[in-house]
């Protein structure tokens, strides 16, 4: 009883934060018009096909999306609205009633005739693994008695819950890294729970919503395995979290180098030295927890003749141009140097700022809704301060003592970042188009949150308290401003 009381008191800050975050998530789910989040039409189409037909979207068929989805999208003006600041969603009650009569006349068959591909092409999300969409099939079926908008919005609300899991895992991650310091844990969890882009993406239908908690959980468990040594329990949990990420989106593969590193270090520490037999024995079950579900998906994909990941060719007819890659990376983060070929038209002047700061923190709708510039400057400075501060905190706390955890976290970050750059460079070489989006970096948000908490830990207690409160206040204001801007863009 006493233990429960203590646990309850210790978790109270987190629980209150999660309730606040749930309200914010509900606001996002209900303010953004249907399909006005990136690729939401593709993801809804995938989820509906899976829920109605029991299989992911096909590569060949008669209709890319269901009749029901196409009619609803036309009624609300979804396609013309996407990224078009001239357009507004349909405001006419008469048009809404017209759509209701139309969908009532169509009946339930109109839900199930979208097979993933039609004359206009296939569903762009069809190469994604099915886990997130299966997760979304739960609210889809739960709301099967309602119209499409009833199901879509319940799916959004359900998806928004995933960010609460990410916030809780970040709370645990900061606790594992910095010790049980509730103020710092709350700061870290709040960064995840209230970061505007993370809430916007999580409260839409998008598998990125599942990646954030999967990465947060993997980061927490990876640090735990390294610190406490590998056990069957924490190893299986770590690998299962990584498997969830991989089965949500191929981006999850970026966790593998870090997970293998954590298992190796954890096994080494648990065995008290380098013993191959012990390493194999301790890692066997955890690796099975990873290999079985991922292997099952790969086998299914192969048997059903579908790509298990998005296919990206190698530019230049198979020859990898290392100088070109260097030039691309340089210009992503720095101004173009003399003699370098410029990036294709469509790239912003400094992609790192546009994608990794502005797109990561807050660009909404189909990225056409932006903040006033000073807010981007503020979050950019905050991000830079967190990265520098975390490095200082690491050095101060003893670099050698915490090298293993630091290397693990850096490996995860660089694997994701490197994977995104390599993919973009290949697409650039093949198709000359932009690939990266700020939201692709959201899986690293828990890491940024931990870095902010570590930075705050450098301050003396009173200053620390002030900074934690100011950080949470700033995140709250960002939420209010973002929701107001989004509401004005669509409805004023």
């Amino acid at each position, binding site marked *: 009883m006493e233990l429960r009381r203590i646990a309850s008191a*210790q978790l*109270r*800050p987190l629980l*209150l*934060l999660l309730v*606040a975050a749930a*309200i*914010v998530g*509900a*606001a996002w789910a*209900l303010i953004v018009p249907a399909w006005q989040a990136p690729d939401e039409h593709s993801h809804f189409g995938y989820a509906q096909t899976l829920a109605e037909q029991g299989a992911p979207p096909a590569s060949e068929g008669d209709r890319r999306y269901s009749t029901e989805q196409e009619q*609803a999208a*036309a009624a*609300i*003006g979804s396609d*013309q*609205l996407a990224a078009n600041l*001239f*357009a*507004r*969603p349909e*405001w*006419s*009650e*008469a*048009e809404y009633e017209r759509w209701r009569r139309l969908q009532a006349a169509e009946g339930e068959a109109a839900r199930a005739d979208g097979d993933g591909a039609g004359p206009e092409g296939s569903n762009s999300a069809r190469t994604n693994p099915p886990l997130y969409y299966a997760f979304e099939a739960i609210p889809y079926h739960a709301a099967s008695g*309602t*119209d499409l*908008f009833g199901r879509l*919005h319940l799916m959004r609300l359900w998806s928004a819950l995933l960010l609460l899991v990410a916030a809780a895992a970040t709370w645990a991650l900061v606790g594992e*890294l910095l*010790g*049980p*310091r*509730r*103020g710092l*844990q709350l700061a870290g969890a709040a960064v995840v729970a209230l970061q505007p882009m993370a809430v916007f993406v999580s409260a839409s239908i998008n598998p990125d919503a599942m990646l954030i908690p999967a990465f947060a959980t993997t980061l927490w468990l990876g640090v735990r395995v390294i610190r406490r040594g590998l056990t069957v329990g924490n190893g299986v949990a770590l690998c299962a979290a990584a498997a969830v990420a991989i089965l949500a989106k191929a981006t999850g593969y970026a966790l593998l180098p870090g997970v293998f590193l954590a298992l190796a270090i954890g096994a080494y520490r648990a065995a008290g030295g380098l013993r191959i037999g012990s390493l194999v024995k301790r890692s066997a079950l955890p690796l099975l927890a990873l290999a079985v579900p991922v292997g099952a998906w790969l086998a299914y994909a192969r048997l059903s003749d579908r790509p298990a990941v998005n296919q990206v060719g190698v530019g230049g007819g198979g020859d990898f141009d290392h100088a070109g890659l260097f030039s691309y990376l340089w210009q992503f983060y720095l101004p173009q140097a003399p003699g370098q070929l410029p990036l294709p038209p469509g790239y912003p002047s400094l992609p790192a700022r546009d994608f990794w700061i502005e797109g990561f923190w807050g660009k909404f709708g189909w990225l056409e809704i932006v903040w006033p510039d000073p807010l981007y400057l503020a979050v950019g400075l905050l991000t830079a301060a967190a990265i520098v501060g975390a490095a200082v905190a690491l050095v101060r*706390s003893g670099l050698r*003592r915490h090298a293993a955890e630091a290397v693990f976290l850096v490996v995860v970050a660089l694997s994701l970042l490197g994977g995104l750059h390599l993919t973009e460079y290949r697409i650039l070489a093949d198709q000359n188009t932009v690939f990266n989006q700020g939201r692709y970096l959201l899986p690293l948000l828990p890491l940024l949150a931990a870095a902010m908490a570590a930075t705050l830990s450098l301050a003396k*207690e*009173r200053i620390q*308290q*002030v900074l*934690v*409160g*100011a950080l*949470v*206040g*700033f995140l*709250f*204001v960002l939420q*209010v*401003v973002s*929701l*107001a801007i989004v*509401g*004005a863009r*669509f*409805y*004023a």
Partner: protein
Amino acid sequence: MRSWAVRSFLAVAVAGLIVAFAAVAGDNRNTAFTLGVTPGLSAAELRPGAEACQTPIAVAEAFDGVRMQVGTYKRQGSPLAVSIRRPDSGRAIAAGRIPGGYADVSQPEVQLDSTVAASQRVAVCIRNAGRRKVALYGGSELAHIGTSAEIGGRDQGTDLTLVFIRPPTSLLSQTSEIFERASLFRPVWIGPWAYWLLAGLLLVAVPALLAGSLRAAGADDSPPQSGSQP
């Protein structure tokens, strides 16, 4: 000392909300509704005396003016006579005139002689009342399904860029309207009340919860003991 986090939270939150409210109160907008057509091409070329109509248009909100984008081939723009009509009978509902002399690729507005009520279908017709040809900007007819641009009754395969306007009002005073519009195409049980409730929760309950969270964290917080983790 523990309440420092709560105090700084409240200071930042209140200051931020004041700035945000001031911005919303000072942001005046006059859009009644729009067809949402991006001005990407010449959707209708009007020789002197010719008339283009965009029809039928469902009037989502009452309006008393229309804004369009006009190309003048680098000369002074011709006067344009604008009339709002019933699509079936052609009976005029409202009319207005844009005087000549506007610049090339500009967005002149016409003030109508009466307000056009919501919840009806209309045709917006623009006649070149000058001596030089002009081009009305718009997009392909897929830009807004169910309506199209016509000249002399012939479908042009395009949509005109038209923005329907009304007297400007601040964003803050449009809150009720914004919530009504937002509640369309939602679950059937959602009405404007849900947005009022969410706004209340967002502006009162969320900061209260966050302040409570900070207070609880402060009451329980303690740096790690020496020798434990950093």
